[in-house]
């Protein structure tokens, strides 16, 4: 690929050798690759999203119950490239409009955990198999958590509010307006993600060039590694595209796939800043239960894949 050749050209031109060469090549190659894919995918999806404003997503989910509703919520969660701050009004809007509580939780959980750009970046990084596992397990965990919290009656821990009718007209935008909206939105999302990608690729490059395989073998290869991955991953806040290069290089050093997957998903799905945002509309019992079911699901998936694969 052209990025690979370019990265090789850069390290050749700098006359780098050994571990430094490997790290620099990883850094240049991964940064270019991830940013290129990211730009294309985010722009494409934000354009498509203009056809699915939150109000429409809510209407799709209305009246759906049981499996169809949960599944649809998970799929819509994947394709929605909303920033974490905008999922809250969407969540409130859904609850207010009478969408079953469990289904809204599924949407809330899957939206950050499974990212459409990650689905495009991952196959070239960790292979198609792990990408598919990531998507299927994310959907499963999201659906199970929503279903469980619903069954346990956790809807009583959402803040009370009156849901009103908006006076704003939703006219169909023209193609030009859609493109403009997609451009503004994509630009914002990409600018927000870039620092995380660069830091992530930097950490990945250091691991790739300098971390001895022995260390991963000794400390991270057992099943306890999955617990460690989730404990470290849950409070951490970064974009999933910043985690991918780190996990990529760790797997290259012998990290078990299930552990890598668990780390990636727990970083993406849950974080301290997200809990602060949720705190504004949910009681702490619900936040704890939400984080607890998701973390447990991710843990089980990680342990399972380490055994099976």
């Amino acid at each position, binding site marked *: 690929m052209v990025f690979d050749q370019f990265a090789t050209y850069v390290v050749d031109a700098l006359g780098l050798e050994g571990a430094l060469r490997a790290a620099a090549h990883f850094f240049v190659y991964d940064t270019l690759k991830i940013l290129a894919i990211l730009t294309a995918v985010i722009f494409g999806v934000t354009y498509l999203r203009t056809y699915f404003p939150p109000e429409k997503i809510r209407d799709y989910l209305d009246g759906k119950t049981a499996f169809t509703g949960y599944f649809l919520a998970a799929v819509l969660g994947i394709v929605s490239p909303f920033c974490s701050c*905008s999922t809250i*009004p969407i969540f*409130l809007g859904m609850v207010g409009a009478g969408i079953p509580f469990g289904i809204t939780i599924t949407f809330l959980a899957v939206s950050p955990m499974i990212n459409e750009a990650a689905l495009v970046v991952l196959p070239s990084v960790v292979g198609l198999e792990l990408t598919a596992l990531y998507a299927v397990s994310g959907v499963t965990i999201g659906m199970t958590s929503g279903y469980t919290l619903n069954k346990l009656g956790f809807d009583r821990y959402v803040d009370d509010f009156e849901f009103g009718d908006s006076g704003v007209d939703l006219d169909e935008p023209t193609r030009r307006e859609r493109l403009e909206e997609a451009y503004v939105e994509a630009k914002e999302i990409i600018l927000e993600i870039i620092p995380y990608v660069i830091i992530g690729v930097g950490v990945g490059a250091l691991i790739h060039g300098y971390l001895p395989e022995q260390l991963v073998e000794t400390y991270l290869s057992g099943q306890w590694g999955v617990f460690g991955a989730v404990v470290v991953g849950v409070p951490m806040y970064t974009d999933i595209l910043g985690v991918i290069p780190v996990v990529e290089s760790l797997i290259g050093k012998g990290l078990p796939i299930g552990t890598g997957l668990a780390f990636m998903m727990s970083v993406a799905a849950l974080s301290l800043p997200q809990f602060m945002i949720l705190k*504004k509309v949910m009681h702490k019992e619900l936040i704890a239960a939400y984080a607890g079911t998701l973390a447990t699901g991710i843990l089980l998936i990680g342990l399972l894949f380490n055994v099976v694969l």
Partner: protein
Amino acid sequence: MKITVYGPSGCSNCTQLKETTEAVVDRNDIDADVTKDTDMTKLAAKGIMSTPGFEIDDEMVFSGSTPAADELEEIITERL
């Protein structure tokens, strides 16, 4: 007039909209009180699901987009 921008903390679009609004208000010498409200249940109470929400004198004018400064100027001045 009273202008309220609704948006949670951490939404850079929303902060930017408030700043653009303040700039427009200053430039045109409009007597307006520009505030930002981060309480999302208030936004939900108005039936809005996309941030930022933009309100002039208790009327939700638009939501889910950040218009350019000249467009925003038009929106504000026509409600004077």
